[in-house]
C-alpha cells in the first residue's frame, strides 16, 4: 500500500514537473519529469515485481515519446514557424521512432529472459556493459565535436563599405 502511494506520488511529481516545465518554457524540466516518471516505474518494479515485467519496453518507449513531445512543444514555441507539412512529417517520424525503439527494447528483453543467468560473473559483466555503453556515448559525443553555446548579442549594423559621395569634414 505504501509502495503504491510512493509510486503515485512520484508519478504525480513527474507529471507536475512536466506541466510546469511546459508552462514556464523550461526544456530541462522534460528530462527531470522523465526521470521522476521512470523512478516511479523503477519503484514499482523493484518492490512489487517478482517476475520480469513484460511491459518494460512499452514503458521505455512511452517515456521517450513523452520527452519527444515535450521537447517538440518547447521547440514550437521558441523556434521558427514550420512550413506546411513539417509537423505532419514529424508526427509520422515519432510513430516510426516509437515502433523502432519498441522493437529493439522487446528484443533486448527477450534476450534477457532467455539468458536468465544469475551470479557474480553476470553482475560484473552487466556492470562492464553499462559502463561501456556510457563510455561509448561519451566518446561519440566528444567525437561529434560539440561546441559550447555561443552568446547571442545584439545585432550590430555592418559597417558601410562604400564611400559616400560626400566631401567634407
Amino acid at each position, binding site marked *: 500500500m505504501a509502495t503504491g502511494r510512493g509510486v503515485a506520488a512520484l508519478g504525480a511529481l513527474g507529471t507536475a514537473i512536466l506541466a510546469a516545465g511546459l508552462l514556464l518554457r523550461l526544456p530541462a524540466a522534460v528530462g527531470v519529469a522523465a526521470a521522476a516518471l521512470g523512478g516511479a516505474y523503477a519503484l514499482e*518494479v523493484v518492490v512489487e515485481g517478482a517476475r520480469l515485467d513484460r511491459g518494460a519496453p512499452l514503458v*521505455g518507449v512511452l517515456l521517450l515519446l513523452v*520527452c519527444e513531445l515535450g521537447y517538440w512543444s518547447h521547440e514550437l514555441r521558441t*523556434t521558427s514557424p514550420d512550413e506546411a507539412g513539417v509537423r505532419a512529417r514529424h508526427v509520422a517520424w515519432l510513430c516510426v521512432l516509437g515502433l*523502432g525503439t519498441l522493437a529493439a527494447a522487446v528484443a533486448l528483453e527477450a534476450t534477457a529472459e532467455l539468458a536468465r543467468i544469475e551470479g557474480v560473473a553476470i*553482475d560484473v559483466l552487466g556492470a562492464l556493459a553499462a559502463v561501456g555503453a556510457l563510455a561509448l556515448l561519451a566518446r561519440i559525443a566528444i567525437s561529434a565535436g560539440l561546441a559550447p553555446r555561443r552568446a547571442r548579442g545584439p*545585432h550590430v549594423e555592418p559597417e558601410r563599405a562604400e564611400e559616400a559621395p560626400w566631401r567634407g569634414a
Partner: protein
Amino acid sequence: MTPRATPRLTAYAVLVALGLVAALGARRAELAVAAVPFALVLALGLTRPAPRVRVGFSIPDERALEGDDIPTTVDIDAETSLARLEVRHVLPPAVEIVDDALPLALSLQAGESRELNVAFRARWGSWTVGDLRVRARDRLGVLVWERRVARPHRIRVYPRPEQLSRLLAPAHTQATTGNETSKVRADGLEFADTRPFVPGDRLRSVNWRATARRGTLVVNERHPDRNADVVLMLDSFVDVGDARDGILGRVVRAAATLADLYLKRRDRVGLVSFGGTLRWLEPGSGPVQRYMLVDALLETQVRFSYAWKDVNVIPARTLPPHALVVAISPLLDARAVTAMLDLRARGHDLAVVEIAAESFAGTGDTDVERLARRLWQLRRADVRERLRGMGVAVGRWDEETELEATLEEVRTYRRHALVARR
C-alpha cells in the same frame, strides 16, 4: 557548420545512465530495457553525419522607394537530408520582412532545392542586408548545426517624394539654358517689352503692329529661359521623433523632392548638410548629380557636436553667386539659425522651409511646463520674425500641411519681399 547539443542530449544521457545503474543496483533487467529507447536515440543521433547545405541570397533591384516592397530571393540547396532547416535573416533595425516570411523552418530531402521569395520593407536610407543564419537538425534532434551565411547586398531606399506642381523661383538666373524665365532681356520666348529699333536688331524681332501705330520701327524684347543654381541646405544638428516621420526624415524627404524636381528643370543643384559634421556637394546637373545627391541624402544623419559652426566653414564654391539657397530646418539649433542670418546678410537669396517641431514636444502637464512651452514657442516665433525681417521667406511644414502649401507660403512672401527689396 558548428554542432551544438540540444537539451535532449544531456537529458537522454542522464536517463540512460540512471536506467543502467538502477538496473545493476536493483538487479532488474526491466530498468535497462526501459532505457534502451533513449540509448538508441542517442547512439543514432550522435553518429549521423553533419548536414550540408548551400545558401544563396540575391536582390534583383537594390533601389526602392520608401514603403515599397523590395523582393529578395533565398536559394537553398540541400546536399544531405534535413529534417528541419531554420532560416532567419538578421537585419538592420530600419529594415523589416513583409508578412513575416522569415524565419521559417523547412524540411528538405537530399538534393532538393528551394527558393524562398522574401520581401523587405525599409525606411529611407542605405542599408546592408544579406546576413543569414541557418540552423539544421536531423530527425533525432540530438544535435543542431548552425552557420552564419554572409551574402551582403546594399539596398538604397529613397524617401517617398512629395507632390509638387511648382518650385521656388530664384531671384537670379544663371547663364545657361534652362526652364526658368529670366528677368533679363535677350533672345527668348517670353514677351517682355517693346523698344525702338536700333541697327543690329533682327528683322524677325520687329513688332509690325506697334510699328504701324507709331510710324517708326519697334521691336519686341523677350525674357530668355535660363537655368538656376539651387543649394539645398539641410539642418542636421538635431533630430526629434522616430526615424521615419521625425524631423530628419522630413528634412531629407523635402530635400529629395526639391532636388529631383530642380534637376528635372535642368537647374544645377548642390547640397550642404550643416550639422555636427559639415558635408557638401557642389552644384551640378544631370543624372549623375541626381544619383550623387540622392545617395548623399541617404547618408544624412545627426552627429552630435558642441562645436560652434557658422557659414565661414562652408566652402565658397558650394554657394555660387546668385544661387537660391533653400534651407530646410526645424530652427531648433542656434548655429543653424545664425548661419541662415549670415547667409542672408551676405546677399544670398535664401528661403527657409521650417519643419514644425511643436508636435514633437509635449503640451505640458503642469503650469510650469505649459509656461515653458509658451516661452519656447515665443522664442521660435522671434526667430521666424528675425528671418522675415531680413527678407527671408519662412514656410512652416507640419504633418497636416502639404509641402506644396508650404512652398506657396514661401512664394507669396518672396513676391512681396522682392518688391520691397527693389
